[in-house]
């Protein structure tokens, strides 16, 4: 208990009453299907990710990695089952509550197009705090600290996002994802547009940042090379396979 309490973030204190507090992410009998398509979709009978775990989620394309990520981010809602984040029944929240929860507790980094190109780096980061209604007075200071940690000069804050290299953009995306001190970070193939050197640098920084801020990281990629950066690795199929072992629990 006490160990978990240390893990828990201060703004998450209300969740401590939950018996499953050691799980940052908990899925139970979650299923999702796209309309009109029988093949794609996900069925996950059970999956737990503990606080501050860093999970490498891999699988071939079409295995439902991105769908799972969308479910975790609350952009998609499971057709059945429950999905709890930080001890809260996330899937039962209203769309508005999900948007607010996502803004405050979840950071997301995409494959590419993470930033709004015509806004400055600072404006991009400020948007995140605006929607989280964090009421931060000095985003600029916090942002330049984060950027420094990501090996980016603070001077790029005023540059428009489209003038940055892809590697820089991805790092700014991390800074933006972290600005609200989220408990969960969802990352989808962030290195696919980077060369080998940039990719390794990016991965090292990402893992460091998550360690430092005790963030639960879900990292999705099909690139098995990246597996070496993680202690935990989960294959998409294995999540689904478990449904075969317990057919009674699937829908």
């Amino acid at each position, binding site marked *: 208990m006490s160990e978990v309490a240390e893990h828990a973030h201060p703004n998450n204190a209300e969740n401590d009453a939950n018996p499953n507090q050691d799980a940052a992410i908990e899925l139970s009998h979650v299923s999702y299907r796209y309309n009109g398509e029988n093949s794609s979709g996900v069925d996950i009978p059970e999956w737990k990710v503990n606080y501050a775990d860093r999970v490498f989620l891999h699988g071939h394309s079409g295995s439902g990695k991105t769908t799972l990520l969308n479910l975790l981010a609350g*952009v998609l809602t499971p057709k059945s089952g429950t999905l709890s984040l930080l001890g809260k029944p996330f899937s039962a929240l209203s769309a508005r509550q999900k948007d607010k929860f996502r*803004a405050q507790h979840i950071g997301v980094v*995409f494959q*590419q197009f993470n930033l*709004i190109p015509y806004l400055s780096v600072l404006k991009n980061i400020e948007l995140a705090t605006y*929607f989280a209604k964090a009421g931060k007075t000095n985003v600029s200071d916090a942002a330049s600290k984060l950027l420094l940690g990501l090996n980016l000069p603070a001077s790029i804050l005023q540059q428009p996002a489209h003038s940055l290299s892809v590697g820089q953009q991805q790092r700014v995306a991390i800074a933006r994802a972290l600005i609200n001190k989220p408990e969960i970070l969802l990352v989808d193939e962030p290195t696919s547009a980077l060369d080998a050197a940039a990719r390794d640098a990016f991965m090292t920084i990402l893992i460091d940042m998550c360690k430092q801020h005790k963030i639960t990281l879900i990292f999705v990629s099909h690139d098995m090379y990246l597996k070496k950066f993680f202690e935990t690795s989960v294959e998409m199929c294995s999540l689904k396979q478990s449904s075969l072992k317990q057919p009674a629990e699937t829908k």
Partner: protein
Amino acid sequence: MLVSLAWSSLGSRKKSVVLTFLSLLISISVLLSVEHIRQQAKESFNRTISDVDLIVGAPSGQLNLLLYSVFRMGSPTSNIKYESYEALQESKLVEWAIPISLGDSHRGFRVMGTNGNYFQHFKFGNKQALSFQNGQAFASLFEAVIGADVAKELGYQVGDHVVISHGIGNTSFTNHDNTPFTITGILSATGTPVDKTVHVSLNAIEAIHLSASKQNQLLDDANSVNTTPESVTAVMLGLTSKFATFKLQRDINNYKTDRLMAILPGVALTELWQMMGTVENLLRVISILVLISSLFGLSTMLLASMQQRKNEIAVLRVLGAGPGVIFTLVLVEALILVLLAIVSAIGLLSITLTLSSDWLAAQYGLFLSPNLLTLETLKVVSVITIAAIVTSAIPAFEAYKNALHSSLSAV
């Protein structure tokens, strides 16, 4: 934050945004100017005559009488006896009476016979009396007072000699070459038909219709020929009490010794304005259609941008912006453009009106105020804004749908 985001988003699509802005600017300017000119023209129209309670002339239509006596348009059907004018002036109910005699012209400008009462009692605009920019009223037979436009266009100055012809056309066959007039005064500009009138005495009108030999005789000795007027075209009356207007009008219409008709200028002006309502409404309809088409242009521009903004919307969604926020964002973009266009249109029109007010007054007798900030404009502006919100709801709803279905890295 949303406004600043919308502003930056517009800034990232400068070309199409500027073109849309220009189209909005033009259409809003057209609508505002039509509305403004309509208002002002009506005012300008109503300022041609002021403080005149009744106009008396020979029986015809009230519009006809109004047109020829006030606007100097058309020809009088027949005249009334000079004795009738004298009778009117002697009435206890009448404070002053201005006789006018029309039918002649000078180089395209109407010549009007009247007497001193005219310069004393005739009022225009907001009860403004006539004033002289130069010289004074005519005192003797062959003297004339000209309006500001006449002086300006023909280059006349006080002391010049002019020839006044019989009839209304510019080149009348029977030019009264023998009756030269001296200009004794030039009136200040009024923005009414007075500016385009040559004023002479009633006796002078009689004189220019005399035979050439009698005119020569007159030129030698002004008293040798009787030039007492026999008739006048119309009489403008100012009454001692406004309450007497209808009684006097009835009495005049029932006058036994001469066939007379009295009209209330305000009522006749209103009737005239209603006749012009059709044209006015047509202009309004056209300008509204122009506005609607440019509003559709605005929503087309925003719709076309939706495809390229899918990523942008996905990013905003992930940051926690709900579909409602995305809807608002697109609406704010449209409103920024429309409001900017409205402000620019008002600015543009004010400048244009200020610069062209002299020309409009001289050319069309239109006195337009450059002040657009009236209640009427405010109404038009709010209608434009509401229409903009309605039309841009289409792309905003498209963005809303986009936002609902947007998912992470849906590449």
